[in-house]
C-alpha cells in the first residue's frame, strides 16, 4: 500500500491499465509532455510512449469523436477534457453518438471509452472552470456517469470505467484532488459502477452527496455528532446508474433525507435523488426530502464563490432543521 492523493491514485490507475492493455490510449489537450494541467497524466508519456499518451489538437468535439472512432475499432481511449466547462463543444458527439452507437447498431459496434473531466468549484478559478455538469450526462441515456470522492475509490472506479464495455463519464472532483490522502493498493482492483457506499451509518437522517461535497458533509457531521445527532452518509459514487437499493434502505430506516450537491438547483442532480426517495420510501418519510444545492446562477468568480459554495455550517443547519422537523 502507498499513500496517495486523488491525482496520484488516478495516475496510478491509468499507468496500470496502460501497462496491462496495449489498446488503452490516453490523449487530450496537454496530457502528453505537460502531464495535464492537473498533472494527472504526469510521467505517462515518458513511460508508455508518445504513440499512446499524447496531445491532441485543441478541439473537444474532435477529441470525443475520434475516441468513438478508436473505440469501435478496438482501442480503449481514455480522453481528458481539460476542465468541466470545456466539454460543451463535445456535447453533440457525446449525446448523439458516444451514448448511442451500441443501441443504434444493435450491439454490433460498442464504445468502450472513458471521458475524464476535472469538475466542480471551490478552487478560485476563472469562469468555465468550476462547472458541475453531471446532470446533463445523467439525463443522457447510454452513458454511465461516476464520481469518486476518495483516492481509493478513484483508482478502483477508474479501472472499472476503463474495463467497462460502455462509455463512462468519469468526473474528478478537482477541489479535493490533493486534499485527501489515503492508502491505496498498488495492485489492480476495481469498484463496481453503480454502487453507492454508506460512509457512515446513522439513524436519524440520511445525507446523500458525492464528489467534493462529501468532505463538506463530513465536516458538518462532526458538528452534528457533537450535538448527539446520528447521521447516515451515502456517497453516491455513481450518478447513472443510480443505486436505488442503498437509497431506499437508508431512507426507510431514517425517514429523513438531505441531498447535497454543488450543481445548480433546477433540473439538477438533487431533484432526481429526491424523486427516487419519493418512489422508494414515501411512506417512511417524516420530513420533506430536502435538497441543498447550488443556485440557478452562473458560479460566481472567486470573490463571490463563497456565496455559492455550500458550507459545512449550512449543511449542519439543514441536518438539524430536518431532524427537529
Amino acid at each position, binding site marked *: 500500500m502507498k499513500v496517495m492523493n486523488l491525482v496520484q491514485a488516478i495516475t496510478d490507475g491509468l499507468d496500470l491499465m496502460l501497462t496491462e492493455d496495449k489498446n488503452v490510449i490516453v490523449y487530450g489537450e496537454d496530457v502528453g509532455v505537460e502531464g495535464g494541467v492537473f498533472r494527472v497524466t504526469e510521467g505517462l508519456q515518458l513511460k508508455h510512449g508518445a504513440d499512446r499518451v499524447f496531445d491532441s489538437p485543441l*478541439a473537444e468535439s*474532435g477529441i470525443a469523436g475520434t475516441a468513438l472512432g*478508436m473505440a469501435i475499432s478496438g482501442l480503449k481511449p481514455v480522453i481528458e477534457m481539460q476542465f468541466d466547462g470545456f466539454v460543451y463543444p463535445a456535447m453533440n458527439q457525446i449525446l448523439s*453518438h458516444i451514448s448511442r452507437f451500441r443501441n*443504434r*447498431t444493435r450491439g454490433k459496434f460498442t464504445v468502450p471509452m472513458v471521458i475524464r473531466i476535472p469538475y466542480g468549484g471551490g478552487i478560485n478559478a476563472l469562469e468555465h472552470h468550476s462547472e458541475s455538469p453531471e446532470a446533463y450526462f445523467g439525463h443522457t441515456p447510454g452513458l454511465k456517469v461516476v464520481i469518486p470522492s476518495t483516492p481509493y475509490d478513484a483508482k478502483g472506479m477508474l479501472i472499472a470505467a476503463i474495463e467497462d464495455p460502455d462509455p463512462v463519464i468519469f468526473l474528478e472532483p478537482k477541489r479535493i484532488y490533493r486534499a485527501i490522502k489515503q492508502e491505496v493498493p498498488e495492485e489492480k482492483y476495481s469498484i463496481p459502477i453503480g454502487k453507492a457506499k454508506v460512509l457512515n451509518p446513522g439513524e436519524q437522517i440520511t445525507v446523500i452527496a458525492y464528489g467534493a461535497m462529501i468532505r463538506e458533509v463530513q465536516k458538518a457531521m462532526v458538528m452534528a455528532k457533537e450535538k448527539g445527532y446520528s447521521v447516515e452518509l451515502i456517497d453516491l459514487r455513481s450518478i447513472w446508474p443510480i443505486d436505488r437499493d442503498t437509497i431506499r434502505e437508508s431512507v426507510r430506516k431514517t425517514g429523513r433525507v438531505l441531498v447535497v450537491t454543488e450543481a445548480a438547483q433546477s433540473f439538477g442532480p438533487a431533484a432526481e435523488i429526491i424523486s427516487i426517495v419519493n418512489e422508494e420510501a414515501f411512506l417512511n418519510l417524516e420530513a420533506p426530502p430536502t435538497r441543498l444545492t447550488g443556485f440557478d446562477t452562473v458560479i460566481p468568480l472567486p470573490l463571490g464563490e463563497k456565496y455559492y459554495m455550500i458550507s459545512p455550517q449550512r449543511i449542519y443547519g439543514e441536518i438539524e432543521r430536518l431532524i427537529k422537523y
Partner: protein
Amino acid sequence: MFDLKTLDKYKPIDNKMYQVMDDEGKVILKNWQQPMSDEDLVDAFKDLLFERTTDQMAVSYQRQGRMFTYPPNLGQEAIHIAAGKVIKNEDWFVPAFRELGAWLAKGVSLREIFLYFKGNEDGSRFEQANRMLPVSVPIASQLVHAAGIGFAMNYLKEEAASFAFVGDGGTSEGDFHEALNFAAVWNAPVVFVVQNNQFAISVPLKMQTRSINLAVKGVAYDVPSVVVDGNDFFAMYEVMAFAREFVLKEKRPFLIEARTYRRGAHTTSDDPTRYRTSEEEEMWAAKDPAKRLRNYLVEKKLWNPESEEELVKSFKKKIDSEFEAAEQHPEYRVDDVFDYMYEKLPDELARQKNMLKNYLSTVGGDK
C-alpha cells in the same frame, strides 16, 4: 489513370475539375485507357442500374405508406458505384446517408436498408457488411469518427483505409474542420468524400460557402484534394482508386469533391420545386451519370440498351422480395427498446422495462 502527376495538374486552387468523359459519354482525355476490364465495367453499370432501381422502388414504397422518410440517390450513383468498386472488405466505410450503391457494395443487405427506413434499428445492424458504420444523421459528425478510425488503423498496424462521406452542406459544420485537421495531424489514412450535389435541402451552395470550390478547403489542413466530375464514372473510379492507395502509402488523408446533382427530392418529404428551376434540373439531367456510362458502353458495343428493361424487371423482383423480407421481419419487442443500451442491462433499466411489461400485460400487450 489518375496519378500524382494528374493530381498536380488538377489543383483545386486553380478551380480545375477532373473529368474523363463529356456529357454524352465520350472520352475527352488524350491517351486515356479504360481503368478496368470490360466485364467489370459492365458489372459496374449493372450495379448502377440496380441502385437506381432500388431507389425508385424505395420512393414508391414510401409513397404507398410502407416506409417512412427516404433520401433518394438519383443522379449521384456514379460516385457510389465507383466507391463500391474501390473499397475493400478490410476498409472502413463511414457514411452520411446518401450513398446507397456503395453500401450495397460494402455488403449491406437491401432488407436491412428497407428495415431501417421502415423505422427499425435492426436495419442498422449491417450484419454481413464488414466495417460499415450506420447512417449518421447529425450532419458531418461522422467525419471525426473516421479520423479516429484512421488513427486506430495506424496504431494497430492494419493496412486499411477509411472512406468518410459528407454533403456540400456538411462542409459548413465545425466537425468537418476538426475531422480534416485531426486526420492530417495524425497521418490518418482517410479518404474524405464530399458529395457536392449543389444543395443542402433547399439551401444552394453559394449560401453555404464563398470558397471557389469545396476541395480547396483541404489547403487549410494540408490535405491534398481534387475536384472530380461526380457524374463521370471513370473519373470517380480513378480518383477513388488513387485516393485509397495514396492514403495508405502516404499515411495521410485525401479529400475528394465529387461534383454532382441531386436529381430527386432531398427526402420523400421534400418538394424541390419550391427552391429550384426546371431549367437547372434539365441542365443536370443532361449530365446524368447513367446516361453517360450507358452511352460509353453502347458505343463500345458492351451494352445492349434493349436488354435493360428485362434486367430492371429482374432487379425489381429481387428488390420486392427483399422489401417483403423486411416487412416480414419479426415484430419490434419491448426488449428491443432496452436491451441494446448497454452490454448488461443495468438494474435501473431492468426496472423501467419491467414496469412497462407489467403495464402492457394488464392492457393485453398493446398500448
